[in-house]
């Protein structure tokens, strides 16, 4: 499919050798929202959860320590920048790399929490993300092998052949696992049941946005 059909008017392209970035309203909107959210995260403070104490009348505050807060904020900002990069990129392999980077950062954000259940589900999510790197990168490599290019600008103008469709199906499998939707959502939903809200939310937001972008890219490749 043409990207004018998917993303609206083409504002222009930024040619960097083989890689051609293209700017459409859809990409620009996704990119802008993620940059604004990343800025909000960079200046915000973490929340404090209030939990009812068992068998007593008082409440307990669940706080996040200073070093843990700093580490989490750093990783969350990097995660936001990586998601914004995945929104604007015009290269298939860069998209998969940004996706894998987001997966690693998601694990990193929750790596220092104290709840063992959260760590357990992060471990399970990490295993799934690592296993899904085979279909993700493999699909991109098969598309490269059967068309000779990774540029989305070029891929959208080539007619699809069976190997491209096979590669796109493999990539879809990889995207499902790497962003933790549909069959694997349970572990990812468990990952943010911990204090430290604005930084934890980026885990959810990045996977939502990347799914939108992945659908656009798959339609471009298959169209």
């Amino acid at each position, binding site marked *: 499919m043409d990207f004018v059909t998917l993303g609206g008017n083409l504002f222009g392209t930024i040619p*960097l*050798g083989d*890689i051609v970035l293209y700017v459409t309203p859809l990409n620009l909107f996704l990119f802008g929202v993620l940059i604004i959210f990343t800025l909000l995260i960079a200046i915000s403070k973490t929340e404090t959860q209030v939990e009812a104490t068992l068998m007593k009348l008082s409440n307990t505050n669940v706080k996040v320590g200073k070093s843990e807060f700093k580490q989490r904020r750093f990783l969350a900002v990097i995660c936001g920048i990586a998601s914004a990069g995945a929104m604007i990129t015009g290269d298939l*392999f860069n998209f998969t*790399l940004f996706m*894998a*980077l987001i*997966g*690693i950062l998601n*694990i*990193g954000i929750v*790596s*220092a929490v*104290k709840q*063992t259940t959260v*760590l*357990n589900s*992060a*471990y399970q999510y*990490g*295993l799934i*993300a*690592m*296993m899904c*790197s*085979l279909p993700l*990168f*493999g699909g*991109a*490599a*098969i598309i*490269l*092998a*059967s*068309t*000779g290019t*990774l540029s989305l600008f070029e891929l959208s103008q080539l007619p699809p*052949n*069976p*190997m491209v469709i096979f590669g796109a199906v493999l990539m879809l499998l990889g995207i499902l696992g790497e962003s933790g939707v549909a069959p694997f959502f349970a572990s990812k939903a468990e990952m943010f049941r911990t204090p430290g809200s604005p930084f934890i939310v980026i885990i959810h937001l990045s996977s939502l946005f990347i799914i939108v972008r992945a659908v656009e890219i798959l339609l471009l490749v298959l169209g």
Partner: protein
Amino acid sequence: MIFTPPYVPSEFIFMYMPAIYAGLIVGFIGSMAIAMKREELHILILTDLIGLAMIFVVSAVGTDLAEALILPGLVVELAETMAISEILISREMRKIDADPRRNLSKASSLFPQPFALNMEIMTTAPNFIALVLIGYGIFLTGFTGGAVAGGGIVLYALSKKARGMPVLVIDGIAGVSGISWCLWIIGFLLFFVAPNLWLISLFLAACGLLLKVASKVGLIGLLMREDIDKE
């Protein structure tokens, strides 16, 4: 039906399908092993096997563009393994914090005995071999040259018995590593922005990568010596 661009040599076309099948079969075997095993550390190691199958599939493409894709794929795979093992360590530490007596008796270390390297060859030969390796590495340049030169530095660091490296030296090596990383990135950017300056950007990238890898491997050697010499 496979569409192949006309500039791919014909030898690679015959190797492509077997390599793809090999990658997918290795991935399948790895997934089956994960389904059978129930211990977490084993699952982590078996997951790395699937990562290697990913390298198979990517490298099956066999063009120089694919060669540029293998390196980031490998780095991502390593980073994911490290992140997951960090999660595992953190969880086990939380569990031990909650119940310190739980696995007190089962404690073990990588080197249960003091690890002393008192071999004659470690004191005489290494200076010469390290010099040759570093010279050959500088001659090679790039990633391979960095690895060779770094191997020379590791050999030298392992063989010398001087204790207590000053902090300034380790900081200095880390600084050289950072500056060379910047050189590499500048070379890479220049290659995209101004393609007619390809020679200078190639040299910037090659020398940056040489210094980068050499200093990284050398740092590993220094840290290892600090670790091993603790008796």
